[in-house]
């Protein structure tokens, strides 16, 4: 039996295929983008190809992330908060707190036995999210993926006083024109983001083990800054982008096996890999 988790985030789309022993058969990551948002079916096809499976081989599919409603072939939608909690727990069974910093939001989750018990999310703005680094990297003229390494070369941290992404961008322009050193500015930006997210996590209460996930967890400078801001150890999965999709796949498996064991109706439907349709397209 095979199970799939499809996580359509604001920036990246992720698919994980597993078997009933949680072995990873395929993992796909790709940019969500304005086009890809409608093309969950294509990402799914790639994933199936990688695992040499057909769509009919998949017993149950859970979709998650902001685009979870745009996956017409999914059997069920579950929020990324529950999926991350489940995914992180499968990798770190002792986890009690998880912080996920994605492209458009930051979330802190309290976890008990693999289940989400409480959470906080950032306000509806880009402060405290990956977008903060994305926007300021563009202003500094450096690639987003280089930001973390640049931060690690800093000799001191420039204090960035504005947590609003737009104001921070203006502040960066001011610092550059004052002749401040690039590495020190970048380190300051990481520090600002980390302190914002740490404050969010403290509102929820931090209990070890603490795990950091999301695209931002791939940034070594950010992991360092988070450890400093939180003042505690931080675990990071090898593939911090995939925990949501992994959790979705595991939840699909658990749902399916539970229904099977109880002799209930299976949480699955006849499906084809169809493209998501939107109202705006129907009108065209």
């Amino acid at each position, binding site marked *: 039996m095979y199970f799939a988790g499809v996580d359509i985030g604001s920036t990246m789309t992720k698919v994980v295929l597993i078997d009933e022993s949680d072995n990873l058969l395929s993992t796909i990551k790709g940019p969500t983008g304005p086009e890809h948002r409608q093309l969950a079916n294509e990402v799914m096809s790639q994933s199936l190809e990688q695992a040499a499976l057909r769509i009919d081989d998949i017993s149950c599919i859970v979709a998650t992330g*902001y685009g979870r409603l745009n996956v017409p072939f999914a059997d069920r*939608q*579950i*929020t*990324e*908060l*529950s999926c991350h909690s489940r995914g992180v727990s499968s990798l770190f069974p002792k986890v009690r707190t998880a912080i996920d910093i994605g492209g458009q*939001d930051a979330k802190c989750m309290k976890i008990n036995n693999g*289940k*989400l*018990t*409480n*959470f906080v*999310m950032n*306000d*509806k703005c880009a402060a405290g999210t990956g977008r903060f680094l994305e926007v300021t990297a563009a202003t500094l003229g450096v690639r987003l993926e280089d930001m973390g390494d640049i931060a690690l070369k800093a000799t001191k941290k420039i204090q960035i006083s504005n947590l609003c992404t737009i104001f921070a961008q203006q502040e960066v322009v001011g610092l550059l024109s004052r002749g401040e050193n690039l590495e020190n500015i970048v380190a300051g930006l990481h520090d600002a983001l980390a302190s914002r997210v740490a404050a969010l996590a403290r509102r929820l209460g931090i209990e070890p083990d603490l795990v950091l996930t999301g695209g931002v967890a791939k940034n070594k400078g950010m992991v360092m800054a988070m450890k400093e801001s939180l003042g505690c150890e931080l675990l990071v999965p090898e593939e911090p982008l995939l925990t949501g999709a992994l959790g979705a796949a595991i939840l699909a498996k658990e749902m399916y096996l539970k229904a099977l064991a109880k002799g209930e109706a299976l949480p699955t439907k006849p499906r084809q890999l169809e493209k998501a349709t939107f109202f705006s397209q129907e009108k065209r």
Partner: protein
Amino acid sequence: MSDKSKGLSKAREIYLNRSQRAKELKAAGQTIIGYPCVYVPLEMLTALDLVPYQTCGDIREPVTEADRALPSSFCPVMRNCLDCALKNKNDFLDGMVTIHSCDPQEKTARVWESYTNYPYFHFIDMPITVRPEALEYFRNQLNDFRKTLETFTGRKLSKDKLESAVKFHNRQRALVRELYELTKPSPPQISGTEIIQVLKALTSLPVVEGNDLLTEVISEVKNRTNGLEEKPARLLIWSSTLDDTDIMQVFEAKANVVMNESCGGIRAYRSKVNFTDDPLEGLADYYLKEITCARTFRQATLGETRKDYARDLQSRFGYLKDIIREWKINGAIMLLVRYCDPFAFEMPSLKDYFDSIGVPSTYIEYDYTIGAMAPIRTRIEAFLETIDQ
């Protein structure tokens, strides 16, 4: 079935075109008085045959005109209300009564008065605590209100007329409570979305017409055969303002909202006005004490030096415990309107109270616009996932 002239369908029609009836009444020679907040004692308007009309915002309307007068980091509900007024959507009003229920109301009232030109404009300076001195002060303020109303109408606001108006408005409060009885069964007989349509229709109608509408709705809902869908959670929403069906539908997609404790819900109807020798005393008492908006300062006992937090919470939020028990609520959402300081500061204590009585709760912030519903949807669904286990 869909007879648009009656009951729920009629309420929906009025909700979608709220000012129509007021305009008709105006054309027939009636005088229409606007008010932005449920703290304005409507009895005093009704008693003088004035038609009260609540000036609401519209979450679909992008705020543009109000930016001339108000900062953007300001109560979005008041910005939106003022914006609608500045776009001449309330041109049929003969007057406006505003009240110092919170600072944004007071600041907006000044701007409203200077940018518009209604024949009548009155501001009631409402105190912020429930102490006896405050009640006396508020009663005097209502007496000033009486005087300007009498001057404006050229009629006397007699005790008889006021008592008769109180009866009609108390009847309305009783009918709204009866309406909320219909959310007690599982599944509820009426949705939170439908209730918003009915209540928002009420605040655009003369009290007697509103009572007739409520009576029709209650009888229609009681005889419903096609019940609502039973959802996995029965929610209480605590908010300053939740008065729009589009927002309510986001909540009701995966839960039954059986109680809306906001000024778009039951808040203004939970109790009744008592008859006193001076009717203004009964009105002052009701409006100051019985409407549970976070703008009012309350504490367990006056003059205590040692504070007992648990008892303080009980005295401020105890009424919610009864609601939670009677309506079998298994989740509470604290819906904050952005920049609403009174509710934002009340939230941590209320969260402690919900924790103390074992009710799962979460808070969600919104900015009184229709945009960016996806983040709200995710927060609601994640909250429902935490309580469904």
